């Protein structure tokens, strides 16, 4: 936890209300998000019990497995779920735009993408497990399931995977997103309780949030008291209606909280980088859709050596970009870097817009800016800098000391003999420079999967679907 977040948590505790740690919203909020609150049977890894979902806060759909240990009922539930989720997901495939690419064919990208919002990180994990249990099932052979089930399994796997991708908003976990924007006065573990976290943000901490009779857990795990005293007798009674109504009481409170949280996030203005990250989400979504349309096999059970390395490289790149973009978008995030000496802000006290380096043809314009700052600057001369005030501009640290930092602008000030108007800050302007830069560096190529070297086990076996898939251990 960073120093500023620690401070915000202490202040939250002191003042009895959560403190903002972001000035803008760092995640995309869809116009029509699909809120998905799943529940699982306690003691089971991935036995769905119920789900409340929908895009309309006034008309949630409740889907219930009245006997979760019955495999047929479970996959009937999965088919019902597919009946809601698949039309929602596929509804975004029709409107696309053509994207031109350098050194590659243009491709079609959806103009908008689905967003499935779950309450917490455990919900994301459960979605991934659901996807895992469905994507290898088949409509023929032993244990056949409805045709939509394996397709839903592939989509759920995709969404669950994408949720681990830094900066993606295709499947946000609500407590995580709230926690990125507000610091409560409770521990990180307690923040995973949606009711408790929302209470901290809106009205201040409340004991009610801990009472499962008032605020049942946001899932996927259920309250053990409810399991023993309500659910078990209802199941034993053999009345589906009784089970359904019992589960409705557990889901409805969370349903309300989810929409309240969405409203809270919607109250923040979106950060400048949100749109570009959502664009990547849309591209990824279209890629997945194309993959399915081409008839590719379901995602493998485990990543192969090459796939894992490729995914890691993409995720690291996304994480670095996400961190930089948030700092550029949000002065409160940038403040963290100012504290660690990787950024500094202050007032321009002197400039030399016409400064040049070199002679004759290699003469280059290098405007000089001197900034007075109170920040502890821990950057060495020669460090390359960027600034949120003038994105795309590059600068270099010349010297720093005694509260004065000299910076020379190296790119993005125009091509002429003099700097473009506005490219060099005026005396008196407040500016911020940082060594964080979001410069894309391609990563070196990986071998093809078929060429996996001996150090990594050699080429993997090809996956061929067979009846064994259906015989898999399941619980």
């Amino acid at each position, binding site marked *: 936890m960073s*120093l500023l977040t620690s401070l915000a948590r202490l202040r939250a505790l002191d003042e009895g209300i959560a403190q903002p740690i972001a000035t803008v919203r760092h995640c995309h909020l869809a116009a029509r998000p699909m809120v998905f609150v799943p529940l699982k049977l306690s003691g089971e890894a991935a036995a769905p019990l119920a789900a409340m979902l929908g895009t309309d806060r006034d008309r949630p759909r409740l889907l219930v497995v009245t006997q979760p240990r019955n495999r047929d009922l479970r996959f009937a539930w999965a088919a019902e779920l597919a009946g809601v989720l698949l039309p929602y997901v596929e509804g975004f495939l029709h409107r696309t735009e053509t994207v031109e690419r350098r050194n590659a064919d243009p491709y079609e990208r959806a103009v908008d993408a689905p967003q499935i919002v779950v309450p917490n990180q455990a919900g994301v994990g459960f979605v991934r497990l659901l996807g895992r249990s469905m994507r290898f099932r088949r409509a023929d052979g032993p244990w056949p399931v409805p045709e939509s089930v394996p397709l839903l399994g592939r989509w759920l796997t995709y969404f669950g995977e994408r949720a*681990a991708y*830094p900066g993606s908003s295709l499947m946000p976990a609500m407590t995580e997103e709230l926690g990125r924007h507000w610091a409560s006065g409770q521990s990180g573990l307690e923040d995973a309780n949606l009711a408790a976290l929302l209470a901290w943000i809106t009205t201040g901490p409340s004991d009610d949030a801990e009472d499962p009779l008032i605020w049942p857990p946001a899932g996927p795990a259920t309250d053990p008291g409810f399991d023993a005293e309500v659910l078990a007798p209802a199941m034993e009674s053999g009345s589906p209606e009784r089970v359904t109504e019992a589960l409705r009481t557990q889901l409805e409170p969370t349903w309300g909280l989810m929409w309240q949280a969405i409203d809270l996030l919607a109250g923040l203005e979106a950060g400048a980088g949100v749109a570009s990250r959502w664009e990547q989400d849309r591209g990824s979504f279209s890629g997945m859709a194309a993959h399915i349309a081409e008839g590719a096999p379901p995602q493998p059970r*485990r*990543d*192969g*050596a*090459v796939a*894992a*390395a490729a995914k*890691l*490289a993409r*995720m*690291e790149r996304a*994480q*670095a970009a996400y961190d930089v973009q948030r700092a550029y978008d949000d002065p409160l995030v940038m403040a963290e870097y100012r504290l*660690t*000496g990787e950024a500094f802000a202050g007032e321009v006290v002197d400039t030399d817009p016409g400064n040049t380096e070199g002679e004759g043809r290699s003469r280059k314009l290098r405007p000089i800016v001197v900034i007075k700052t109170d920040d*502890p600057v*821990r950057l060495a001369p020669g460090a390359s800098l960027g600034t949120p005030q003038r994105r795309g501009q590059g600068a270099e640290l010349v010297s720093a000391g005694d509260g004065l930092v000299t910076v020379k602008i190296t790119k993005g000030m125009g091509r002429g003999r003099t700097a473009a108007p506005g490219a060099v800050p005026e005396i008196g302007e407040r500016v911020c420079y940082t060594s964080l830069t979001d410069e894309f560096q391609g990563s*070196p*190529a*990986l*071998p093809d999967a078929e*060429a*996996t*070297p*001996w*150090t*990594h*086990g*050699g080429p993997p076996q090809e996956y061929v679907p067979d009846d064994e898939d259906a015989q898999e251990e399941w619980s």
Partner: protein
Amino acid sequence: MTGSPEQVIRNVLADLPRHRGVVVDSPPGAGKSTLVVRAAAHIAATGEPLMIVAQTNEQVDDLVTRICAGHPRLTVGRLSAGGYVPPLRLLELPGVRVGTRVQDLGDPDIVIATADKWAWIGGRVWPWAIVDEAYQMRSDKLLRIAGLFERALFVGDPGQLDPFSIVDGDRWSGLSWDPLQSAVSVLLRHNPDLPVHRLPVSWRLPASAAPVVSRAFYPFTGFRSGTSEGDRRLELATGGMGTPHDRALEEAARSGWALLELPNRHTVRTDGEAVQAVALLAGRLLQRGAVASSEQGERPVTADRVAVGAAHRDQVAAIRAAGVPPEITVDTANRLQGREYDVTIVLHPLSGRRDATAFHLESGRLCVLASRHRHACVVVARAGIADLLDAHPSAEPVQLGVPVKFPDGWEANQSVLDHLSRHRV
């Protein structure tokens, strides 16, 4: 612990043609670079081209210098990225060519580059490769370059810091090709029959340190010191003033270890008092004119022979700002890996902390910090680390399919702390 170092090296060289890969584990200062240079000359003598992979540009430059010093007739090509400026000492060497493409190098006996640079090379296969610091190399890097060679010698120190990532890689834990594991772990999981040799003697660590480091960080393989009690001496030329800092230096000079303990307190990472103490120790060490005598002769401990180590970058920056003489190296454990000094001053990773996270408990971090010195190591820490450790037993979730890793960071920390407590000031 079997055989003399010479015998181990001969066994390694004899194994090279018999196996696709050979692994050599080397504890701190056990002559790893010597082995790499020997093996390089040995392979080059067969007339077959050799590629060498190191992890950083400094390591590459060091290796080039050592190869040329030991075997002036070998030609060496040094591949580098575009922005790299070769140090002067490299350009002066006769058999060395520097270039950004393999074609620019002529046809040297040995081509050497960082793993990152090698990943961009393609279209040629070398019969031999030597991978240096292979335990610090992530397996996804090995995956990118493994197609470039047929056989390889992997050399590294298993006790140092594991490679890491800025993203959570739990999703791959348990896979035999987990990209976040070290190159050697992945290699050995897929090729369990490859021979693994161990260099048995540390030439760097003095007799006072080798048993401590060996017991804490290499509990099953172990190593011994190449010098014995009394071979290394550290003397302070001027008298002390009786301050705790002076007494800590005297204790370190006498016994090879000292723990300067500050009052128990929870602090921020850049603990002002601890930082001040570290800076003062460094300054006093130079002022008191320490002289180190060893099998290499007698020489003053100048600023370039002293290093200050800490866990975090902001701590390093704070220590720098607190007035450490500028010639003294101040750096994080990650960047001190593979380096050697006469005296080190260490800010204990757990000093002043409220919690002991996996990062701070990682045995490699403490191992790097406690094994850089030829003569003495002074540790600065807040009191109460033992209680902190007792309050934070390792509680990381156990992942299926992941081989148990030794040493356990928690236990290694206890072991070192136990030893340090006998040298407390």
